Structures are given as structure tokens and as C-alpha cells.
């Protein structure tokens, strides 16, 4: 799991430009699937034939991460940017970022702004001394994101960028390898453009038309400094989602997940996330609808470059997912 997380968080994969991670996942999972393809949107769809083909199960974890898109380059060679996905300017300031072509830069805040920072107050210094020089390396429309970083804390925890949702991808990937024979025809989908409105999973789900669907994504925790009332704690196990701002999970899926966790002694907790959406919604509402649920990984400081998780939670999430895939949903 740890190695997979490290590999996946190292890939460049800002929303809309997920092909590097997609290629990595395709190569890695090919031997474990009946078929694997990349669709027109860029979603990776890994298919495993089930014991029964009467039902279809779709699993979604998103490959994309939030980042910046270049809007202009000013006369001093500063790169002006807009956000791709939900950027918090404080979380994203004074970071080293990397563009798709490998160019590096640092994000700095316009010092004339004293408070209420907006994304437009962030600029990127790539070291250029003029507009002309900057334009040799960076063009309008280029994307960038924080450089890969991963730190182990106290051995059991990890702080890294883009665990939202590379960790979900890692869990789905490990599960895809571990789930020898799924109960139903199962589609492990690694989706694009989640951070900009759940856009990849919607057409992917339309193509599949699942009966059951499970998203794997991160959730906030109530034990983060200054958090609102929330029962989820880091280290307390896989979080079974009841609701977030985009979806109310099907009772049927919630019950199935809880029963599965109880039966197999998997540590779990129930989750209500009051700010944030997931691919669960798009899978729930596609076509005539599916029974949709979400396994969430408790995560502190989401959308910062030091998103922090507990490896035990990630392992519990993987075990829960794999057991649901192999034992079926009941």
C-alpha cells in the first residue's frame, strides 16, 4: 500500500491532464483484469468478470488533483494563475510547484494584500527575469501542482500532497489485485475531472450503467484543529459515508457496508461530511440510478500539500472494499 501511494502521488495529474497516472495504472493493473481501457474522457476502466453477470458494480476513485492554470505572464516574468478545483490560497501559498514540462516555480502571495486572500492574489515565480524568458518555459493554459512530497509521521501516518484522491486510487488498485473473483461484473474506474464537478465519473457510469456503485475518496475529520462537530477520527477505521454535500448514500449500501465490516472485524466509523462532494453522486444519478455508497479515508488538511492520513485506516478501507467486491452486496 505504502509503495503504491508513493508511486501514485509522484505522478503529474492535475484535472484535465490525467494521462500520466492513467498510463501508470493501466500498465500496473493489466495482468489483474479481464480488460482495461481508457475512454474518451480519459477515465481508466478496469474490468473484472464476476461469478455472476446479473449485476454490475462500479468503483470510482479519482486520478485528478487540484492545481493551477496559467492565465497570463506579466512583464516581470511572474506567472498569473487561476484555480483548477477548490484551491485555498493559504493552503497553497509558498509551495514549490511543478508544471507538466518539469518547470518548477514557487507560489507567493501579493504582499499588498493583508487578509482575505483570494486565488487571484497568488502568483508563481519561476525564476524568470522577464516576460520573454518566462514564456520560453510556460504558456497560457499550462497546468501545475505542488511537487511530490511524502513524509512518514510516527511511522504509521503519512503527510503528502494529493492523497485526495491518489490514496483512493491506491486502495482501488490494491483491491483490484487482491479481489481474485468478484461476486459481480466489477468495473474499477479511475476517474478524471472529479475536482471540477464530478465530470469524469458521470459519462463513465453512463457507459457502464451499474446496479451498485462505490466511490473511494477522502473525508475530513472532526479531530482536525478547529473542525466543526464531526464524529470521524483519524485512526478510527474506514469511514462509511452517510452523506456529503453532493449525495445522500443509499441506505441499502450503508447497511451492506456496515454489516460487511461487522462480519469481518473491519474497523469502521460512520461519516457525515458537511462540505465537499464525491463521485458517489454522479454514479447515483446516472441513467435510472444506482444504489450508491462511498468508503472514505479520514484525512486532515484536505487540499493542502500536507494531507495527513493513517495507514491503518487506508488498510481498513481496502479490506472493506475487497470484501464487498468478493462477497457481494447484501
Amino acid at each position, binding site marked *: 500500500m505504502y509503495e503504491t501511494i508513493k508511486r501514485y502521488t509522484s505522478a503529474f495529474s492535475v484535472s484535465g491532464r490525467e494521462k500520466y497516472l492513467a498510463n501508470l495504472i493501466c500498465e500496473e493493473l493489466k495482468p489483474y483484469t479481464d480488460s482495461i481501457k481508457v475512454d474518451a474522457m480519459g477515465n481508466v476502466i478496469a474490468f473484472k468478470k464476476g461469478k455472476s453477470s446479473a449485476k454490475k458494480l462500479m468503483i470510482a476513485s479519482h486520478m485528478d488533483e487540484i492545481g493551477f492554470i496559467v492565465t497570463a505572464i506579466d512583464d516581470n516574468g511572474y506567472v498569473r494563475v487561476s484555480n483548477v478545483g477548490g484551491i485555498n490560497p493559504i493552503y497553497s501559498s509558498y509551495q514549490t510547484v511543478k508544471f507538466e514540462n518539469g518547470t518548477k516555480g514557487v507560489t507567493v502571495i501579493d504582499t499588498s494584500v493583508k487578509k482575505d486572500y483570494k486565488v487571484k492574489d497568488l502568483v508563481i515565480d519561476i525564476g524568470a527575469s522577464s516576460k520573454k524568458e518566462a514564456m520560453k518555459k510556460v504558456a497560457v493554459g499550462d497546468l501545475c501542482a505542488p511537487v511530490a512530497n511524502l513524509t512518514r509521521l510516527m511511522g504509521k501516518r503519512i503527510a503528502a500532497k494529493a492523497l485526495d484522491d491518489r490514496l483512493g486510487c491506491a486502495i482501488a488498485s490494491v483491491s483490484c489485485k487482491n479481489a481474485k473473483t468478484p461476486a459481480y461484473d466489477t468495473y474499477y474506474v479511475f476517474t478524471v475531472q472529479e475536482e471540477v464537478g464530478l465530470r469524469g465519473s458521470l459519462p463513465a457510469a453512463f457507459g457502464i450503467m451499474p446496479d451498485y456503485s462505490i466511490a473511494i475518496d477522502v473525508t475530513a475529520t472532526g479531530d482536525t484543529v478547529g473542525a466543526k462537530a464531526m464524529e470521524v477520527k483519524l485512526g478510527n477505521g474506514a469511514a462509511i459515508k452517510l452523506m456529503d454535500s453532493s449525495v445522500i448514500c443509499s441506505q*441499502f449500501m450503508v447497511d451492506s457496508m456496515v454489516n460487511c465490516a461487522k462480519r469481518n472485524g473491519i474497523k469502521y466509523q460512520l461519516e*457525515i461530511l458537511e462540505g465537499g462532494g464525491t463521485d458517489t453522486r454522479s454514479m447515483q444519478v446516472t441513467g435510472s440510478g444506482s444504489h450508491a455508497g462511498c468508503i472514505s479515508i479520514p484525512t486532515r488538511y484536505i487540499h493542502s500539500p500536507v494531507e495527513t492520513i493513517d495507514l491503518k485506516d487506508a488498510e481498513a478501507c481496502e479490506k472493506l472494499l475487497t470484501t464487498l467486491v468478493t462477497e457481494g452486496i447484501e
Partner: protein
Amino acid sequence: MELFKRAKTITEICAVSGREHVAFEELKERFGHMFDEIFTTPTGSFVGIRRCGKPNAKSILFDAHLDEIGFMVKKICDGGFLKVSGIGGTDTKVLSAAEVWIHGKEKIAGVFASTPPHLRESDDNEKLFLNDMYIDTGMSKEYLEENTPIGTVVTYKTTTEKLLNGHIVGKSMDDKISMCTILEAFDLLDGEDLNVDIIAQFSGGEEIGYIGATTAAFKAAPDYAVAIDVTNSYIPEAPIRKMGNKLGGGGVISYSGTTSRPFTKHFIEVLNKENIPHQIVGEPGRTGTNAHVLQIARDGIPTALISVPLKNMHTQAETATLGDLENIAKALAALAKSL
């Protein structure tokens, strides 16, 4: 069934968005006999179809949403208090001291705790947020942990009552009284020789983003659709621009940017011909109703919108009139007969 009794029965059903399936059995039992076929969806919609019996008949779908706004338990606190998260757009201004049902393993009553005026600081007039409020149950924390775990839904406790002049008041008139108009229309059409199949769609998840209407309509695949929802009616000093419709003036038909103009026009012509009272409103863009998503379900469904005038929307004292319900039922029946 007498109209008030039907309105009371339906509005007192508790079906919070995302948890509408708890009402399916009751709906089937009470109204199942009115349909030839029934299906439900994973997204909380209950759909009843009555066939006209003619080969290759087209179909018209009447949509009203089954779900209501409510709350979900998110934390169990010491002293018998619960913290909840909102489902749909609750007006927190009117929550203080509201009575609720908590639908745990055992259904228990509760009340939103409020600070009495005697104890309030003088500058305590700021807007309340749900996150600052608690539901008082009077039970022990141990009992609550067992009986009302995280995820338990909470609804208003109000019953539906008659006021004077055919007015009725209760919770979740939005949008269960519109379900009532559809059922009344089905009664009016009983035994009529129709050219179209008629579909009653009681959709889930409207209050959380129209999820039940779009998915159920995808499955039902009708040729025409009418959404029936509620609309704010005039109260003193209200901005006329937004609340020009009158309680008792009949259903409010919307010409909007996201409904079908030809179909809406046809609907209005039918009502004029049949002398069925109605009101007309112009809305530039989205209507905030299922009409918006029905119009773009599948490869597009010509959709009209008719609304029940309502006072005090999204509170536990939503007020409507029986006369409007009757007129909307007549309107839907006339429309079905015209096709």
C-alpha cells in the same frame, strides 16, 4: 378519499430526502390499486403507471416530489442532546423551539433547544446556524447511542390541520400536496377513454438536487411531462415581483427559460377552454423544480410546470388551500384528455 383526508395522510408521511424508501410500502398499500404497474428506483422515486390500453400510446408523466427537507443526526452529545446536519434548505430562523420526530430504532420526540429571552445577551440577534443548535431529547446519552445513531433522520413533528376557508397547514406541503393533486387527477380520469398512458411519478431527492426525477424519468421515458411543485404566494409587504401569486387563485403555470413553451401554451389553452382557474408567472431561467431536469432527461422531454401557491415555505407551518389543489387536479386531468 375526501381531499382533506388525503392531503393529511400524505403530508404526514415522513420521507426525508435520500430516505424516501421508508414510505414505499405505505404508498403501495394506500394507492397501489390506482395503477396498472408500479416501479421504484434506488434514488427514492415511486412511479405508478396507468395504461390507456391503446397500442403504441404515448405517455404523459406527472411529477411531484415525495421527499421533504429534514435533518440527520451527526453527533450525540452529553445530557440527551443531538447535533444534526441539514438535509435540504431549512430556514434556521424558525427552528428554535421547533418540535421534531427522531426516527431512530424507536421513534422519539425532541425539540430544538432555544435560549429564552431572559437569558439572552442584548446583542444576541445574529442569524442562527444549524451548527450552533441542539435537539433536546431528554434521554440518556447511552440510550441515544443505541437508539438514534449517527445517520438517523429527523423530521418536523407537526400534524396537518384545517384553517378557515379551505386553508390547510402542516409540514412538507412542499411537495406532498402536489402528490395529492396527481392522485385526484387519476380519480377524475377513472373510466375515461384516454389516448395516452398516464404516469404518476413521486420522485425522491428533489431537495438535494432533483436526483429522483431525472433517474425515474429516464426509466419511465415519457413523451410529455408536467412537474407539480409549490411556489411562494403573496404575503403582506412581500416583493410582488417574486410573490405575485395568490393563494386560492388556482395553479400557477410557469413560462420559464427551462420549460417547453409550445407545451405550456397548449396546457394554458386547454385550461382556458375548460374554464379552469389558473395563474401565470414568467420566470427567466431555472425554476428550482423538477421541471428543470425533466426537460433534459434522456433526449429531452417537453415539460410544463404548474405550482401550488404556498405560504411559509420550508417551515413546519406551510399553508395552502384545498381549492387550489382541486383546480390543479382538474387541470392535469384536462391536459391528459387533450392529448
